[in-house]
């Protein structure tokens, strides 16, 4: 791991698994022996609102919050929520967005969001049909979050080893769902 703190933003809609993804990253970084701080919001966000989590990892991390324009990786579990957090991006930020829409009053059509994402100044934009792939291949779209994590690790968009994430899944995910989560992770990891 480099000296510089690595900044991750995870966004989505309540119930999509933002907090689970954050817990897995925290645990994996901890297994790797590095410092990590993360920040999550509960409460009103639980009722279909936007959920935003910050994760920072490195040798020594102070603040739990990522500054605007300073994210190294952004993972959006939903299109509009991915677009919403682009204020954390700079031109070198890797942005990973699930091509999945959770309708909102006065929201933009899918095509327009995808267009806006592709037109952003960020050079590394990945728009992936994570939920759809998981639904088709695993009959479960909720593990789309884990699929995106597998993709990020496989593409080296996040400085965490595959083995550490798998160990984190073992430590955190309840046993009866572990296999499904590992399958979703490997599906994306192997797709690369």
């Amino acid at each position, binding site marked *: 791991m480099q000296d510089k703190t690595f900044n991750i933003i995870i966004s*989505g*809609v*309540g*119930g*999509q698994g*933002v*907090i*689970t993804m*954050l*817990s897995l990253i*925290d645990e994996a970084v*901890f297994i790797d022996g590095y*410092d*990590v*701080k*993360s*920040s*999550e*919001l*509960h*409460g*009103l*966000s*639980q*009722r*279909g*609102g*936007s*959920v935003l989590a910050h994760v920072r990892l490195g040798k020594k*991390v*102070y*603040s*739990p*919050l990522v*500054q*605007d*324009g*300073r994210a190294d990786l952004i993972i959006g579990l939903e299109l*509009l929520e991915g*677009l*919403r957090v*682009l*204020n954390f991006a*700079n031109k070198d930020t890797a942005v990973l967005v699930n091509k999945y829409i959770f309708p*909102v*009053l*006065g*929201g*933009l059509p899918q095509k327009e969001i995808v267009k806006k994402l592709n037109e*952003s*100044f960020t050079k590394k934009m990945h728009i992936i049909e994570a939920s759809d792939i998981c639904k088709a291949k695993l009959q*479960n779209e*909720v*593990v789309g*979050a884990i699929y995106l994590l597998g993709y990020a690790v496989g593409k080296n968009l996040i400085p965490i080893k595959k083995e550490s994430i798998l160990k984190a899944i073992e430590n955190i995910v*309840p046993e*009866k*769902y572990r296999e*499904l*989560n590992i399958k979703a992770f490997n599906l994306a990891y192997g797709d690369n």
Partner: protein
Amino acid sequence: MKKILLGNEAIVQGALEAGVDFVSGYPGCPSAEIGDEFLKIAKENGVYAEWSTNEKVALEAAIGASFSGLKSLVNMKSFGINVCSDSLLPLAYTGTKAPMVIVVADDPSCWSSAQSEQDSRGYAYLSHIPVLEPSDPQECRDFTKLGFEISEKFNIPVILMTTTRVSHQKMPVEFNKTNSKPQKIGEFIKNPHQFSTMPPRVLEMKKELLEKLEKIKAYAQISKINKISKNPGSEKFGIAASGVAYLHTLEALKELDLDIPILKINLFYPLADKTIASFIKKLKKVLVVEELEGYLEKEIKIIAKDNGLNLQIFGKDLLPKTGELNTEEVILALSEILKLKIENSKFNLPASRQELKIPRRTARLCEGCPYWHIFPVIKRIAPEGAIFGGDIGCNMIAGLAPHSMHDYLFSMGASLGISHGVKKSVSPDGPKVISLMGDGTFFHAGIPALINAVYNKSNPLVVILDNRITAMTGHQQNPGMGKTGMDENTEELKIEEIAKACGVKHIKVLDPVNTKEFEDTIKEFLDKDEVSLIICKRICKLLEKRQNSPSQIISPD
């Protein structure tokens, strides 16, 4: 050992290490996980834990435990301290017998709070109770233990003040594993001289309290509870910071590659003025970094003046009083004082931000929520000009689109208190007034307002949205469920029976899915000259799902 812990989990860990026996509280965001976690592990750890009906009762339960020799912890969100303040102030006077820590979790930026963006540190001045302010989960664990130590040493309750960014922060935390212990049986030894605030004894008690605080201040200075990163040497500039703002300060200094002495205030009250005076005496400039109110800044200005120190003290002139702080804001304040030229492109400061106009995704009712059968019907049936009182809980969503039906929203149970006042003030032939309230809120603070409306003869229509649980804060048990927080069977309190006992003459319990019945009842009750009450009883959809399949693949955020 070391493990990733959430701030709230670290508080539980610290309390277990301190040997806590008795835990009470009322759920709210961002403190709810403390009570949830204790209720899960209470039995195996020899702890008694409960969700009380409100924060005042929760505090009083802990006072009883303390007077009986049990170590107690009370947990609540910011507004909880307002509710319990009536008993909090006398508690400072009587002091504790066994130690007590009161956790109060503020919510700067109001991420999950209506009501107000309150800075609960202000209660330190009002109550004379010591306040510890952790910055991260490690300190949550450490300061909970420290809180119990201070409480035990000085027989005074200690407030542990967190914020959303501390309670919901995660990091690797060092702690000691605890062994399970048997539940301690307390003993109440009569001591009215200490436990009863009857005058003229109360004034003696106040004197004792003020003396105690001087001792705590001296103790804080000797035991170095507040931390100085390095003593100011040739530098003429220093920083005093507290809470999570301290972490943003460290980050800002790292970004700017600056090495500046920092005084970290861990004990907000009583403030160790000698420590502060010795820190600032060689400085020409000090920046005070704290969230919301400028309490520390004002204190430091007074300390400087009392010590005849001539230095510039910055704080709320450069940092906002509204909303939580972040690293950028500290960078901007530092650059202003140190006359640094900050490149916008490097820091992406507000001026250079790309503007994205994206519709807000506000909270909404869950799919299948019983309230979908309630809000539209009330809106349709209520005559034009009807006034709607909103209350705290999931039913708050009535105030948001597409329902948009709140005319006022205040605090727990306030919809009815205010509706009564409106009804008494407007013409008897004037608008109809309808109050919405959840079941948890009814038990928390709705009952006195209901009694008042009956007693003082007004006639709002009260609709209780009884979804069989305290849902908004993450599904905590309440007195209407026949289950305690520890999931034991208990008396199921029926809202209709309470209402009847409060003198309400027109009461109807119905399932809101039966739209026709609901509509007819609203029409009938709106014409009544007395208070009327409809209980819309239908289980929260999430709870129903959970009861059918206990654990989900991914926990709901």
